[in-house]
């Protein structure tokens, strides 16, 4: 089975190549942590995976759907992915409560015209909110919440449609230590129990090593996947990557044939 695979991917923004070569495959439900320096192209890679940016070359495979440079990103794939953008892209002018934002994650599940919410939407919001410990702030306005609470609300919005894959861009920044562990435990639960695949960006190397199944290192235009189990000494790993023996080189199975 292939959950997410990428083959010889090349992505450029405004004529500048950001990702020059990426090839990796995630084959079983796992927690993948994406790390790399600022501006390395982590966000760009995630956006390419969900179809917000079109690749220049190579291909992306999500389950059985294949996306190539010329092809349109399939709608059916979008329904399988829950996305959490970096918090700074949100327009805070809109006076929306946490509840309204979480509910908007259901928008694809409502039939057109999307005016009436499903009858159990309130229960769904409450259930997700309880898992994230935010049930007491549901009726507060989004811009009144702390950074960490905002992150949890956005995570809840990505989760409520029950996607197979979660793509989270810096979900842990601005989040306090206790909440971080809560969120990571929840994510690990989602992987182990519900068989979801989680890809998250963080700058915290400790988190990357302690919680992940795989580490996707993005640097110098390359994205390389490592198994976390094979990394014993973090400092050494970071200093010496990319080392050939630890890198998971996908056997050249034609993902995109």
């Amino acid at each position, binding site marked *: 089975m292939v959950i997410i695979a990428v083959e010889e991917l090349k992505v450029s923004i405004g004529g500048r190549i950001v990702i020059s070569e990426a090839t990796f495959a995630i084959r079983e439900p796992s927690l993948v942590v994406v790390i790399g320096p600022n501006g390395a192209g982590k966000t760009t890679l995630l956006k390419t995976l969900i179809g917000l940016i079109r690749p220049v070359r190579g291909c992306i495979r999500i389950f059985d759907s294949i996306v190539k440079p010329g092809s349109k990103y399939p709608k059916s794939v979008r329904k399988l992915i829950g996305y959490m953008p970096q918090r700074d*892209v949100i327009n805070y*002018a*809109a*006076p*929306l409560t946490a509840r309204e934002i979480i509910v908007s994650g259901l*928008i694809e599940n409502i039939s057109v015209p999307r005016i009436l919410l499903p009858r159990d939407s309130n229960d769904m919001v409450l259930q997700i909110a309880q898992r994230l410990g935010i049930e007491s702030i549901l009726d507060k*306005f989004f811009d009144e919440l702390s950074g960490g609470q905002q992150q949890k609300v956005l995570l809840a919005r990505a989760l409520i449609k029950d996607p197979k894959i979660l793509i989270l861009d810096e979900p842990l920044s601005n989040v306090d230590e206790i909440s971080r562990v809560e969120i990571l435990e929840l994510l690990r639960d989602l992987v182990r129990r519900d068989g979801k695949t989680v890809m998250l960006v963080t700058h915290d190397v400790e988190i990357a090593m302690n919680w992940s199944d795989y580490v996707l290192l993005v640097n110098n235009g390359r994205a390389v996947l490592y198994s976390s189990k094979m990394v014993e000494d973090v400092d050494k790993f970071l200093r010496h990557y990319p080392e050939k023996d630890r890198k998971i080189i996908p056997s050249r199975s034609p993902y995109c044939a």
Partner: protein
Amino acid sequence: MSLIIELTCLSILISLLAGFSSTYTSISRSGFLVVTISHAILASLAVLFYIAYIFNIYVTPILTWTIMLITALPVCAFVSHVRLFSERDLILSIIFALMLSIAALFMAILPGFMISRMWSFLTGSILLVSPMDMTFIFIICLICSTLYTLFYREFLLVSYDYEYALATSIPAGAINYLLSILISISTLACVYVLGLFVTYAVMLIPGAVLVNARVRPSLSIFLNILIIFITLMISIMLAFKYNIPPSGLCGVMISILAGLAIFLKFLMKRFKKTQT
């Protein structure tokens, strides 16, 4: 008597259009779009009147509305492709300046009797709306209000988190375009009836104040429609009694109301601070 009924109907239509648009404009930060579209119309009408004068053509309402639509739609199409707010506002401000200059250029060379017709687009001509115009405004209002209602959730989502919306399976790009079109068409109707000057007061102020006071979008739409309708009706009545232009009055009233609301909010904040 029938004039009063006609004006009431017109006020209902205009307050529906402006009420919906005002909320959406402020949530989607499209204030600049409203300003630019209205000046683009002014420019194209000035050019239209000049050509009509040269070739001695009579400018029918159909021609006027067609030209206004033809001017507005490309601006929307162009602008809704620009994702960055700063970039979008830069492009809009260039179009705005260009259009204002074109309008100034052509209005300067128009003969006097045509200038007065242009002038009515600036100050409004609510008392002179023809049955033909009324029909146009009715159709526009019907279409816009229906779409504004049907796409409520989609419009909110693309306005507050466009990137997330693009990542879902809903056609976010098309919805964003539709929202700009609806805001622009509503602007057309408002400029036609209330004039350029007052359009800003009606389309920008109430929505901005309510959104700033954290009134929920659906309630804000309802309140906007109500506020605009009441001020329009009061203005029309005062206009009849004292023979002053109604749209100007309406703009002044809305601005004063907004000022009061902001002052009240400020007082409440101070009061809360002194209590704690």
